[in-house]
């Protein structure tokens, strides 16, 4: 049904880079100097931000790009390291002013990514920079403040310095350190105690895709006690070009706060994406995270949460679909620090062509985290003999009264189910579509937000039916 060779064949050139076969010294490739040069050229910022950025830059230079350490065992970042990306915004003519890049992206370009939900609160960022013109987020209520981080930094409103860099630590995370060195803009969402946002808040990060640019969106979500919201981050492009998105989102959940967080990664076929979402959860808080990753030639999604308070709950679910020569890596970490916390995780992958998928899920149960209830699974479906997946569910338990399970599967389509469908008149191609879709849809069903779930179901079905790429 899907001719992978022709449909996704254009990805080959993205991974090669300019110097082809030259081995890359990941500790000190030339690109680090380019980052340093752009770092120096950043416009003036408040003292606290200058010092935070400097810490980030210093840490990034000390760490270098990650090599084959434990966290990057199955993923080589050489294609990213050997490319000297230009920092979006800084390298525009002079220092960009409000909305200067947004003119290249029209509202019409975004329509197919907005789920046909005009009532959702939408913030649009073009190459990492907030676009007032493309955004609409009125009527959020008194207890909710949504702002561009750049504006908050400039005006001091909400004092983002209280949280920035405190949740997404970067001692050992080179890409987070790099993002920190370039903190400038992103979304800043503040929910006061008991705030309830009825409509989802949709953050759309558009790569405008001209020039080989890197953007470092930085988002901060602070949910005070018993507040509640659904937040979607979509990473999209308007042109199929080579660019690099290096995003970091920090989320703080106060006591009893409830956040549904969705990350929809639809980057261009040639692009690189590294995105880290790092979360801290106070007692009785609930986090439901869903990661949908289909884009990029090399993409990595990190979702890390820390269950700091008694009876905090998290669900980390995800779906990754790869094809052609794509490489999509999913890394999760759940730190059970406090007792009585349930954590549930289901990640599924469907891999076609010569693509490579990675799942690495860690669950740490600290000594005080008694009565932990952890379930983790990763299931993969290989559609082609050349597709590959590396899966590594990890469970480390230092408490003695816990209930934890984990497991991973890698398989091909079930021939018994195939015959069952055939025996009802459904041909092999349709049956293959149906079974593949069913495998993926199973985890999509966990998405609470109905319009989003239905839209993703449509996208996935169309992809497997071969009617759309």
């Amino acid at each position, binding site marked *: 049904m899907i001719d992978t060779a022709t449909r996704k064949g254009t990805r080959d050139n993205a991974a090669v880079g300019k110097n082809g076969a030259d081995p890359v010294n990941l500790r000190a490739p030339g690109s680090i100097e380019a980052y340093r040069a752009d770092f120096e050229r950043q416009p003036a910022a408040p003292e606290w931000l200058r010092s935070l950025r400097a810490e980030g830059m210093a840490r990034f230079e000390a760490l270098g790009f990650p090599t084959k350490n434990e966290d990057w065992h199955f993923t080589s970042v050489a294609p990213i390291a050997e490319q000297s990306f230009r920092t979006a915004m800084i390298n525009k003519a002079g220092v960009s002013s409000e909305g200067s890049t947004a003119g290249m992206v029209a509202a019409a370009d975004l329509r197919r990514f907005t789920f046909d939900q005009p009532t959702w609160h939408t913030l649009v960022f073009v190459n990492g920079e907030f676009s007032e013109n493309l955004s609409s987020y009125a009527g959020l209520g008194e207890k909710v403040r949504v702002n561009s981080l750049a504006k908050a930094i400039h005006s001091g409103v909400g004092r983002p310095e209280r949280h920035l860099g405190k949740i997404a630590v970067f001692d050992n995370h080179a890409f987070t350190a790099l993002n920190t060195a370039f903190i400038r803009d992103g979304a800043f969402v503040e929910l006061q105690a008991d705030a309830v946002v009825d409509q989802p808040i949709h953050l759309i990060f558009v790569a405008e895709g001209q020039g080989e640019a890197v953007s470092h969106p930085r988002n901060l979500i602070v949910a005070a006690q018993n507040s509640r919201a659904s937040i979607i981050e979509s990473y999209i492009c308007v042109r199929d070009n080579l660019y690099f998105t290096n995003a970091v989102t920090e989320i703080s959940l106060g006591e009893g706060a409830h956040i549904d967080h969705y990350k929809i990664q639809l980057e261009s076929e040639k692009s690189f994406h590294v995105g880290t979402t790092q979360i801290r959860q106070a007692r009785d808080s609930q986090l439901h995270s869903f990661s949908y990753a289909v884009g990029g030639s090399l993409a990595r999604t990190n979702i890390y949460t820390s269950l700091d308070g008694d009876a905090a709950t998290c669900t980390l679910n995800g779906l990754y679909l790869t094809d052609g020569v794509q490489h999509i890596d999913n890394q999760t970490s759940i730190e059970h620090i406090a007792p009585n916390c349930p954590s549930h995780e289901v990640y599924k992958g469907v891999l076609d062509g010569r693509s490579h998928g990675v799942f690495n899920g860690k669950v740490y149960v600290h000594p005080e985290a008694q009565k932990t209830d952890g379930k983790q699974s990763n299931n993969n479906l290989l559609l082609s003999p050349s597709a590959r997946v590396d899966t590594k569910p990890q469970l480390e338990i230092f408490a003695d009264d816990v209930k934890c399970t984990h497991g991973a599967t890698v398989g091909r389509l079930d*021939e018994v189910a195939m015959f069952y469908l*055939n025996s009802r008149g459904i041909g092999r191609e349709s049956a293959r579509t*149906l079974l593949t879709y069913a495998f993926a849809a199973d985890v999509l069903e966990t998405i609470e937000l109905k319009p989003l779930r239905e839209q993703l179901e449509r996208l996935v079905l169309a992809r497997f039916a071969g009617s759309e790429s």
Partner: protein
Amino acid sequence: MGPNGSGKSTLAQVLAGNPTYEVTRGTVSYNGQNLLEMDPEVRAQNGIFLAFQYPVEIPGVSIAYFLRSAYNEIRKANGMEEIDPLEFLDLVEDKLKLVDMDQALLSRSVNQGFSGGEKKRNEIFQMAVLSPRLAILDETDSGLDIDALRIVAQGVNTLRSPENATIVVTHYQRLLNYIVPDFVHVIANGRIVKSGGKELAFELEEKGYDWLQNVGADAGAAA
């Protein structure tokens, strides 16, 4: 009918075209066509239906979607227009009643989490919707309590018509109290060793299969 291991289910699977069975000898003629040359979906499109002994669970596919796909594929293959979800809903309403199942069934994943009885009733429900020319029921009575058995039998009897035929594969005579056969064939060691009317089933219930198995072994040896 026939004892365990006699080849009843093998026959059912072969007729439906299960690719894990290789036919080494013989032919099957179906409406003048060579059945063995057809892919399983083509057989289904030509009116063959197998009610599975162990219906397969397909998580993530609703019965509505699954069955509508099947129904439309069969229509397409026979040069008919596909029908839309609403028309399909009208169509299946009566069929659900036939097997005493609720509309909620339609949104459930195919056979997932079904009890043994529900799985078998779901097979009969599918048969009712697809209205095959030749239905093969493979041990549909196994594992059914008396109420479920009655519902399944009622479904089969209602669908009976001069335009279709049903092969009921069973080990016990019990089912035949509810579905009265026109013919009874007994398989032993892979061969039909005795044929007769419905009385033959009663005779088997009384005497068991032993007296026929010897006949089968002899016949097998002779072949």
